């Protein structure tokens, strides 16, 4: 009955990445960052971060250079569209070289404060 509790009879979980599954597997195209064109990477300073700002899944880090968590990136291509220096290009997953290592490790280290 209902006494078995909320956790048992509804979809309920602690917030955290992967709650809806490893969504990286949904991706058809992956965003690849060219650090020669990326503003913070090129300047070596905290700048731009438009990709970090626009990513709807918060899988791009606010770091130099920005990194993309492919475990959860769904490949929506918003970052590639928004990047002012066209440093991000979308590459078909099917065209990925067979020896390209599948990322498995999750970089998540707990909730990030909003900045």
């Amino acid at each position, binding site marked *: 009955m209902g006494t078995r509790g*909320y*956790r048992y009879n509804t979809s309920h979980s*602690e917030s955290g990445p992967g709650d809806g599954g490893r969504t990286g597997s949904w991706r058809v195209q992956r965003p690849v960052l060219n650090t020669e064109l990326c503003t913070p990477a090129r300047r070596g300073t905290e700048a731009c971060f438009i990709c970090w700002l626009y990513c709807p899944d918060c899988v791009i880090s606010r770091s130099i250079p920005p990194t993309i968590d492919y475990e959860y990136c769904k490949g929506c291509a918003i970052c590639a569209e928004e990047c002012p220096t066209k440093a991000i290009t979308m590459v078909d997953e099917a065209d990925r070289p067979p020896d390209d290592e599948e990322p498995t490790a999750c970089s998540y280290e707990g909730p990030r404060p909003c900045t």
Partner: protein
Amino acid sequence: MHIIENGNVAAALGVKLAGAQVIAAYPITPQTPLTEKLSELIEAGEMQAQYVPVESEHSALAACIAASSTGARAFTATSANGLLYMHEQIHWAAGARLPIVMCVVNRAVGAPWCIWNDQQDSISQRDTGWIQMYACDHQQIIDGVLKAFSLAEATSIPVMVCYDGFLLSHTYMPFVVPEEEKVARFLKPFKPSYALDPDNPANLNTVTLPDIRMDVTGEMAHGYMEIRYLLQEDLRGALTVAQRIEDEFKAVFGRGGDALLEPYRCDDAEYVVVGMGSLTYQLRDVVETLRGEGLKLGVLGVRLYRPFPDEALAEAVRHTRGVFVIEKAVSYGYEGALCSDVKAALYGRLADGNSGRDDSGDGSNRGRTGGAPFVRGLIAGIGGRDIRTADLTDTLRTAMKGTLPDGPRWIGLKL
């Protein structure tokens, strides 16, 4: 204390006594006086609750879903097209297992526009996973609201308390207002199985996948199918819980007792007429008239429509020759939904080979040799068409004598 009031006020007083904490509703005839009464009670300080005026019924139930998720006792009410406007949220409240209580003041559904009573609105919501109770008089409305909160919170399933628009909502009759100290004994304070807590954020009703999956804590989490199966299982179990709560209510208040079905002169009945709502009390007059003519008829009122009390119903009509189902709703393209449910309850449970069939060939049922009773569906009162007791009496007399013509029969149709 006895008072004389209308059915909407009975419902409002029940909601007040139940200690509902959040009311969100949008006015629609014939429900409007119910929510007006609640807003008056809150405005006057007689009821401690948050009244949320919303811009639609969809928002009304969404607000109740949010309130219930925080652990508040939430109530809403609507009718007809307002109920249909809620439809998406009605499914949501059940899937989210929130013990919301809603009064449905039964009204015909447009098009064409019609404000008068039938039961098409709530019947059309029968597959949403809510519990549906049907009240026959004002006492059952006010008591029903209290039982509904108890049942909803015991099962984590939302409950609709349905009562006939105008026939009950706007008519005045005497009823007992439950005493507060007895209510306190019957309805315990709401202890939610989960309440939103900003300090401990959680995801509610997140995307489920076709299969089970590991959640972020490493535990296996149910898929959609498991969660929906549990809703169905708990709804079937709610038949037992509803009767237990009814028994608890009777122990405290000394009235009631029939949570699932309300029989009237069924013990020795050769025929039973099945219905829901105020119609079943009107049918008692028909029973008295026909009994006076030597025709052994009984009435079986379906008080709990979902979950459907199939076993109890089959047992109640086991020894009868025939069952007539009179209802104020149609599953368009087939027959009355209640009629189909009654047939399904009997099929396999009482059927005895072909012996339950009428083999006379003339539709008279005289050829029946035993087994399950036949079931005959009748439609009445669509869009508030007056249901005259004399018409019911004539129809049932003809039906019991086996001379009712075949085919769909709408009592009171003027074509």
